[in-house]
C-alpha cells in the first residue's frame, strides 16, 4: 500500500515541479523580451539550474521523506521561481544573489530533512529552542553586531555576512510554542470563570499571553519591526487558541493587540505615521505615502491582464524587490497574476492545515498548524499592507521577496511541514 502512495505522491510532485519550472522559464523569457526585446541569452542554463535545484530537492524528498505530501514543494518552487523572475527583471545583480540564496535554501531544506528524521525529535529540545528563539529575537539589539536598515533594527552583521535572525526566530519559537502548549494545554484550557457564553480560564493562565504580548511589544518598540511583532504575537495567540480550544484566548489576545497597537500609535511617531498613510496615503503622495501610492498606481495600471512581464514600470516603487514585489507582479500580470499568487498561498495554507489535521501526535498537529499560520499570516500582512487592507508593516513575502534569510528560513519551515506529513503517512501505516 505505502509504496503505491509514495510513488503516486512523488510522481505528482515531480510533475508539478516540471510544470512550475515551465511557468518560471516562460515568464523569465517573456520578461526578458519585455525589458530588452531579446530572448534571454542564458535561457538554456537558466532552465537547467531551476530544474536542477528543484529536482535536487525532489530527489532528497524521495529519499528522506518518501511518503510526504507532494504539493508543498512545487508550490514553494513556483513562488520562488516567480519571485526570481521579477527580481531578475528589476535588478539583475540582486537576481544573482537570490539564485545563490535559493541554492542555500534548498540545501537547508535537505539538511533539515536529514537532521530531523521525526518531527517529535524536536519536542525534546523545548527550552533550547526557547532560548535560541529569544536570543535570535534580541540579537539585533546587541551593540556591535546589530544593524539598522531602513529604520528597523533587525539585522545582524557578522563580518561580511548579514542576516535577519527574526526570520529564523519565528520557526524556532513555533517549535517552542508547540512543545510548551501541548504540555500545558490541559491546564491552560481549564475553565475557571464564565463570562456569559465564554468560558474564561483562570486569570493566572493568561500569564504566558501577557509575556508574549510584552515580548512582541518590545520587538516593535526596540527594533521598530512592526511586521515581525505582529506576526509573533498572532502566531502565539493562534497556537494558544488551537492548543487549548478556548476562544477566549483569541479574544483576549485580539483585545490586547488592539490596545497595544492603539497605544503604540499614540506614543510613537513612526507607528502613527504608518496608520496615517494607511488611512490616507494620498495626503502624503510625494513623501511618506509615496511607496503605497506608487504600488497602487502599479496595480491599477496592470488592470485585469497586466502589462506583460517586463513591460510595466514597477521600478518606481521603493523597495520593490523585497516588501513590494507583489505590486510588481500585480502590475505586469494583472489581477489574474496577483490572484494566482493569493491562490498559491491559499493552497500552501490549505495543504499545511490538512497536514495538521491528519497529524496524530498533538505536538505535530500544533507545530504544523503554527508553521502554516506563519506562512499564511506573513503573506497576508505584507500583501494586505501593500494593497492597504492593513497598515503597512515591512516584512518579506515568503519565497517571493528578495532576501536570503527569509528564503532560507522558509525552506526550513517547508522541510518541517514535509517531515510532519511524512510522519503522518507512517503512523497511518502503523495504524493499519
Amino acid at each position, binding site marked *: 500500500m505505502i509504496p503505491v502512495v509514495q510513488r503516486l505522491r512523488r510522481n505528482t510532485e515531480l510533475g508539478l515541479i516540471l510544470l512550475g519550472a515551465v511557468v518560471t522559464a516562460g515568464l523569465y523569457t517573456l520578461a526578458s523580451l519585455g525589458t530588452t526585446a531579446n530572448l534571454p541569452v542564458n535561457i538554456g542554463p537558466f532552465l537547467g539550474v531551476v530544474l536542477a535545484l528543484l529536482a535536487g530537492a525532489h530527489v532528497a524528498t524521495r529519499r528522506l521523506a518518501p511518503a510526504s505530501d507532494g504539493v508543498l514543494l512545487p508550490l514553494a518552487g513556483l513562488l520562488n521561481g516567480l519571485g526570481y523572475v521579477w527580481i531578475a527583471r528589476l535588478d539583475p545583480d540582486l537576481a544573482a544573489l537570490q539564485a545563490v540564496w535559493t541554492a542555500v535554501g534548498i540545501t537547508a531544506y535537505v539538511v533539515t530533512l536529514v537532521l530531523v528524521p521525526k518531527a517529535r525529535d524536536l519536542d525534546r529540545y523545548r527550552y533550547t529552542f526557547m532560548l535560541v528563539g529569544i536570543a535570535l529575537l534580541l540579537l539585533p539589539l546587541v551593540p556591535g553586531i546589530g544593524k539598522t536598515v531602513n529604520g528597523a533594527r533587525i539585522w545582524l552583521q557578522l563580518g561580511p555576512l548579514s542576516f535577519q535572525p527574526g526570520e529564523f526566530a519565528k520557526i524556532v519559537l513555533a517549535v517552542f510554542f508547540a512543545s510548551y502548549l501541548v504540555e500545558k494545554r490541559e491546564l491552560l484550557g481549564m475553565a475557571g470563570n464564565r463570562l456569559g457564553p465564554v468560558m474564561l480560564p483562570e486569570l493566572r493562565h493568561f500569564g504566558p499571553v501577557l509575556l508574549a504580548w510584552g515580548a512582541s511589544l518590545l520587538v516593535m518598540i526596540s527594533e521598530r519591526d512592526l511586521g515581525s511583532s505582529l506576526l509573533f504575537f498572532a502566531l502565539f495567540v493562534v497556537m494558544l487558541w488551537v492548543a487549548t480550544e478556548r476562544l477566549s484566548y483569541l479574544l483576549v489576545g485580539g483585545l490586547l493587540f488592539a490596545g497595544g497597537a492603539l497605544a503604540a500609535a499614540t506614543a510613537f511617531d513612526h507607528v502613527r505615521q504608518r496608520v496615517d498613510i494607511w488611512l490616507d496615503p494620498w495626503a502624503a503622495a510625494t513623501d511618506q505615502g509615496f511607496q503605497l501610492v506608487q504600488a497602487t498606481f502599479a496595480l491599477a*495600471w496592470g488592470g485585469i491582464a497586466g502589462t506583460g512581464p517586463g513591460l510595466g514600470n514597477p521600478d518606481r516603487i521603493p523597495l520593490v524587490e523585497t516588501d513590494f514585489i507583489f505590486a510588481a507582479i500585480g502590475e505586469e500580470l494583472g489581477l489574474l497574476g496577483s490572484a494566482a499568487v493569493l491562490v498559491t498561498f491559499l493552497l500552501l495554507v490549505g495543504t499545511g492545515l490538512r497536514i495538521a489535521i491528519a497529524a496524530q501526535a498533538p505536538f505535530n498537529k500544533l507545530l504544523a498548524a503554527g508553521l502554516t*499560520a506563519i506562512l499564511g499570516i506573513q503573506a497576508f500582512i505584507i500583501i494586505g499592507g501593500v494593497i492597504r487592507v492593513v497598515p503597512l508593516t515591512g516584512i518579506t513575502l515568503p519565497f517571493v521577496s528578495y532576501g536570503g534569510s527569509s528564503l532560507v528560513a522558509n525552506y526550513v519551515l517547508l522541510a518541517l511541514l514535509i517531515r510532519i506529513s511524512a510522519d503522518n503517512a507512517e503512523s497511518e501505516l502503523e495504524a493499519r
Partner: protein
Amino acid sequence: MNRQIRRLGIGMLVLYAALFVQLNVIQVLRAETYNDHPENTRAVIRDFSRPRGQILAADGTVLARSVPIDSPFKLQREYPEGELFAHVTGYFSLNAGTDGVERTYNDALAGRTGERIEDIGELLLGEPRTGDVSLTIPTDVQRVARDALGGKRGSVVALDPRDGAVLALWSFPSYDPTVLSNVDIEAAQEARDRILADEANPLLARTYRETFFPGSTFKVVTAAAGLASGSVTTTSPVYPTSNAYVPPLTSQPIRNFGGGTCGGALPDILRVSCNTAFAQMGVDLGAETLVTKAEDFGFNDAPPIDLPAPAVSPIDDVASFQQNTPVLAMTAIGQNAVRSTPLQMALVAAGVANGGDVMVPHVMREVRDNEGRVVETWEPRSWKRAIRPDVAATLTDAMRGVVEEGTATRLAVPGVPTAGKTGTAQLGNGLSHAWIVGFAPADAPRVAVAVIVEAQPGASEQTGGQVAAPIAQAVLSAALAANPE
C-alpha cells in the same frame, strides 16, 4: 484541536478573500481613477515609449522621428532639421508637453486613428500601428524663407491660395525641438530654461501666434471694402492730391510718409500707398463697412489652421469707432486699432488671389499608416467668403500696378505677373515693421505670401519695399518652382 484548525482555515480564507476584494477594487473598479491621477506618470511614460510615426516635409524629408534609446522610455524623439521646422512640428516633451503638429496630430502619429484593425492576428502579433504625417511644406521653400530672412526678427508665410496649403512658415528666432524633447527630464528642463531666458523668445511662433500693426498692407482690406461697397471704383472717387488729411473731430492731420503729396483714384493711391487718400476712404466708408470687410477676411476670428492655439488678429468693434473718426482713419491705413498675424495677412493676399475665397490654411497633406496606406488626406475647404470674384479681379489688377510701377517693384518675379502691397507700420520710436504681401502668377495665382521684418530703422514707405520685398520675392520664386500647376 481539529475544529480550531478548520476554523483557522476558514479564518485564512476570509482574510485572503478580503485581499482578493481589495485587489478587484484597485485593479478593476478604481483602476481608471488611479491611472488618471496627476501623480501617476505611467500614461506619460506609455505615450513616450510607444512607437510614434514620422513627420515628413512635402518632399519626403524627415522632420521628426523616434529613435531607440536605452532608457525606460525606450524611444527618443528627434528632429533632424533642427530649428528649421520647429514652429511647425513643435516638440514632444515630457516636462513641457507637446506643441505644433506633434500636438494636433498626436492621435495620428500614435496610430490611434485610421482604419480598424483587420484581424485578431494583427491585434496580437502585429506591429503597433503608427501614422506618418506628411506636410504641405517643401523643405527647400522653408529653407529659402529662412535664408532670405536671415538673422532679422520676422516671419515668412507662404500659402497656396487655391487650397490653403502652407508652403512656408518660418519665423526668426527659432529653437531646436530635439533638446526640448529629451527624455532626460533634467536636460530637457535645462534646455527649456535656456530658451525661455532668451529675450527674443524663440519659442514663440511669430507667424501665427503674434500680432503686429499691419501698416499699409491693410490698405488691401480697405480697398476691398470700398470696392465691395460699390462706392469706390477704379476711376472714382478721385482723392484730392494732398500732403495731409484731417479727419473730422480732430485737428491732428494724417500725413504721407516723408511729407509727400499724393492723391487720385484707387489704382494710383494703392500704387504709391497714399495715406491721406486711404484714411479718407476709411472715414467715408464708415466703421461698419471697414470692420465687416476685415472680418470677412478672417480678422476677429482664429484661423482654423491645423496647428495649436493660433492667435486672433483683432480689429476693434464697430461701436468703439463711434465719435472716433481719427482712430477709424488710422485703422484704415493699418495702424492703431488693428493688429494682424503674418498668417492672417497671407490669408488676405490668398483670399484676393483665390477670387475672394479664403481657404482653410493647413500644414497636413496626408497621413499614412506604417505600411504606407493613406489613412487621411486633407480635404480643402473654404474658410471665409471675403469678396466677390469681380472685386478680387479689380483688386488684383491694382496690386499688379503696385509691383509694376509702385512701392513693391522688388517683389516682381521675373517673367511672372506679380501682385503685391507693401507696408510700413510705424512704432513711434523711429522704428517700423517692414511688411509685404503678394501673390503670383497674378493671372492664375499659385502662391500667396506675407513677410514681416520687425522693428527696422526708418519710417519711410520705402522700408517695406526695400527690406521685406526681396525676401518675399525669393520665397515666391522658390514656392512657384516647388508648387507647379
